[in-house]
């Protein structure tokens, strides 16, 4: 059974709906820096961490190219492979900018993923609780938070 889990509980229901409607195989919701907020379909922590880091890196490098071209901010990228497609999108929430990395198969399409992603982003904005003032990031807290997030995402 494919499991959907979220570190931020308010993202769980919108993510479940998005995955069900778009027929996405894998979905990963992260911050701009690659911190995982929710995931669907991943079975290994190492895969989630790799995908989050790669997604954030692709978004950052694309955003930089876009900046060089004097274009408005990075919104989405799509890659169509032979068996899988990849969709990477950037969107804003009251909690700050987020990235969504979606992998879909032959039973879906980029049009379908894009369509339901728009709804997903709107639902997240509505579901997002009021932001609290950010605490300073300490090295000691970072590893603890990371381990807590991974435990939540994989039910360990």
């Amino acid at each position, binding site marked *: 059974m494919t499991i959907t889990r979220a570190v931020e509980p308010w993202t769980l229901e919108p993510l479940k709906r998005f995955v069900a409607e778009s027929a996405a195989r894998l979905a990963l919701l992260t911050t701009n820096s690659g911190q995982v907020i929710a995931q669907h379909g991943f079975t290994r922590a190492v895969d989630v961490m790799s995908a989050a880091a790669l997604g954030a890196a692709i978004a950052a490098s694309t955003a930089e190219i876009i900046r060089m071209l004097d274009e408005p901010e990075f919104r989405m990228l799509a890659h169509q492979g032979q068996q899988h497609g990849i969709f990477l999108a950037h969107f804003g929430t009251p909690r700050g900018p987020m990235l969504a990395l979606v992998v879909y198969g032959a039973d879906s399409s980029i*049009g379908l993923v894009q369509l339901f992603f728009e709804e997903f982003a709107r639902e997240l904005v509505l579901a997002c609780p009021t932001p609290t003032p950010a605490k300073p990031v300490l090295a000691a807290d970072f590893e603890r938070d990371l381990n807590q997030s991974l435990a939540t995402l994989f039910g360990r």
Partner: protein
Amino acid sequence: MSDKLRSALDAMTRVRGVRGAMVVAREDGLVVAESLMEGIRGNAVAALAANLAQRFRRASETAACGLPQFIHLQASEGSLLAAPAPSGMLLVIVADADINVGLARLEMLKAAEVLA
């Protein structure tokens, strides 16, 4: 928009009762060209119609009926028509419930020839 796409859309929208016509990338579900009345969400119809066509295709192949030539979805307040076209395209019409489906089908097949 190219002349071919324009004339394909014109042929389909000329039929009485057509609210909108689209040329959609069959595999991607993205709009290639459209001529729609206001209020029709082209990108949503394109994505869902392409997905529907893909599922019908699987069902048809599984049932050993070959590839679907024409899809007619009759709903309570309108109809959705779809026909595959060459080069991986799908022709889609959104129409009133009482549209002359035979005429619309004929125009879609002609439009598919234009795109060939």
